[in-house]
């Protein structure tokens, strides 16, 4: 009887998780969908608590209370601008839970050959996600430098560690009783996580964060195999599929393979393109002139990038857009899939600033509209508008799909300085005759522009 109840709970919760994700296919249904998923989680917890294996509740209740005391403030207080690092660190918590469950299971029950396959995947994916996510968090939070960290022979060391871990894993499947090797494998997993993220630069973070999302899910799924629990398998598989799909989409948006992102250390050495800035001049523009041009534009396309996030300029951007709209112009936002530090980063920031989501356009939708735009306003974006991706085969970003801002009637670029972007590549767009550069911090520049537009 009890088993039927538990299994019904688990089945209902699995269905609710899928319905929850289905809700995310449209912004209107998304919140309701997430309520389904949260309810599903509640059912899974209730179902678990009545299991006869559970004989004492003191530690469980303590853990649930402490977890909630930490989790609720994180959920309520973390600012939207800190979302990439928040997501990275929460992958760590999920993976930590999966790994510890695996260790506890091995410690108590030992393992059979077949069971070790699941346990091994669980602790390997788990341990490398723990440290990998923590490193990603540290880079995004700037506890450690965000640039790629490389040394000679790095790839060889990484690959050697990886094969070492695989070898131990296979040995353990044959001889599952070897306790020391089991813990050595976890240690190696932790090490691989650190070394995997070290050489990855800020611009590649969207791929890494998605990949860690996938690993955290696979660790949960493997836990389900190890302890024979279907809801864990299903929820973990959903997470794994989602993370995998996002990583593929992000890699595609950069025209690079997984392997290239993980082993490429993009931008570590400043790659020399055949085209240089020598002999080219830039046209700078004052805030007054920029305001004049924007105020009388019929159509403006805003291209936000990581610079907007750093400067926290999203609210001023919305203010400016409203002023332009009042004067009769039309404002759209062009969102590149890898702009920012995680998938969808720009969308969340602009939504936070109360920009309606029907004004946010994906790359494919907006590219045909650039030729008709009077002004393309590029705010802290660089590589995602670099025309070298189209016409310079020697450029490291050649082939990457970009926002075709250079096709707009005129372009205003907000930039801190003439330093090249994260990938260290010169951007010809800045030297284009149609382009004017407005130097300075994006937020203070835009605040000036807004003031000028108001005075017009």
């Amino acid at each position, binding site marked *: 009887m009890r088993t039927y109840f538990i299994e019904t709970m688990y089945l209902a919760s699995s269905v609710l998780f899928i319905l929850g*994700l289905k809700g995310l296919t449209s912004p209107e249904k998304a919140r309701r969908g997430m309520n389904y998923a949260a309810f599903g*989680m509640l059912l899974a917890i209730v179902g678990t608590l009545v299991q006869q294996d559970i004989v004492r509740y003191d530690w469980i209740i303590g853990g649930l209370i402490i977890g909630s005391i930490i989790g609720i403030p994180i959920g309520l207080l973390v600012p939207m601008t800190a979302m990439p690092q928040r997501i990275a660190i929460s992958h760590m918590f999920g993976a930590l839970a999966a790994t510890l469950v695996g260790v*506890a299971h091995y410690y108590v029950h030992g393992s059979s050959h077949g069971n070790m396959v699941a346990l091994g995947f669980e602790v390997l994916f788990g341990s490398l996600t723990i440290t990998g996510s923590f490193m990603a968090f540290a880079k995004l939070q700037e506890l450690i430098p965000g640039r790629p960290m490389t040394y000679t022979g790095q790839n060889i060391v990484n690959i050697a560690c990886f094969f070492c871990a695989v070898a131990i894993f296979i040995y353990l499947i044959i001889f599952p009783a070897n306790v020391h090797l089991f813990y050595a494998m976890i240690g190696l997993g932790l090490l691989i996580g650190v070394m995997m993220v070290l050489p990855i630069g800020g611009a590649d973070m969207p791929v890494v964060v998605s990949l860690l999302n996938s690993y955290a899910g696979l660790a949960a799924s493997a836990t389900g195999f190890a302890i024979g629990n279907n809801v864990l398998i299903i929820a973990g598989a959903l997470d794994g599929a989602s993370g995998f799909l996002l990583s593929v989409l992000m890699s595609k948006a950069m025209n690079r393979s997984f392997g290239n992102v993980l082993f490429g250390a993009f931008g570590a050495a400043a790659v020399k393109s055949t085209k240089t800035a020598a002999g080219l001049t830039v046209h700078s523009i004052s805030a007054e002139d920029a305001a004049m041009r924007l105020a009388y534009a019929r159509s403006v396309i805003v291209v936000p990038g990581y610079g907007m996030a750093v400067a926290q300029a999203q609210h001023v951007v919305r203010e400016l857009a409203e002023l332009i709209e009042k004067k009769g112009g039309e404002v759209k936002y062009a969102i590149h899939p890898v702009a920012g530090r995680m998938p969808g980063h720009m969308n969340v920031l602009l*939504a936070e600033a109360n920009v309606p989501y029907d004004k946010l356009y994906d790359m494919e939708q907006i590219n045909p509209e650039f030729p008709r735009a009077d002004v393309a306003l590029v705010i802290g974006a660089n590589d995602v508008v670099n025309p070298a991706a189209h016409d310079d085969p020697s450029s490291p970003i050649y082939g990457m799909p970009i926002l075709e801002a250079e096709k707009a009637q005129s372009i205003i670029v907000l930039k801190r300085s003439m330093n090249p972007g994260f990938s260290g590549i010169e951007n010809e767009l800045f030297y284009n005759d149609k382009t004017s550069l407005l130097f300075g911090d994006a937020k203070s520049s835009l605040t000036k522009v807004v003031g000028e537009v108001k005075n017009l």
Partner: protein
Amino acid sequence: MSQLEIIQLYVFILAAFVGYQVITRVPPLLHTPLMSATNAISGISLVGSLVAAGANEGQAATILGFVAVISATINVVGGFIITDRMLRMFKRTDRVVEKDSK
């Protein structure tokens, strides 16, 4: 491979397939909430953690389970709250205007 393991594999592959099909239709607009949501759902490790913490199989297992319950709870609670906060911000033009005029 036992009968049970084969069934588990079926469940895994079918779930991954369903997940892939559903998630392909999530627009890029909602990719961050999607990641946050799947992250919260992967806090399902809580189920395993609860068993480890409550099965009374020795002090070490209980402590490991206890720490696992804490981490998984942080993941679940924080994840669902923050996903909802994020989704609340996504509004259409008419809704934004309504709110401003109030």
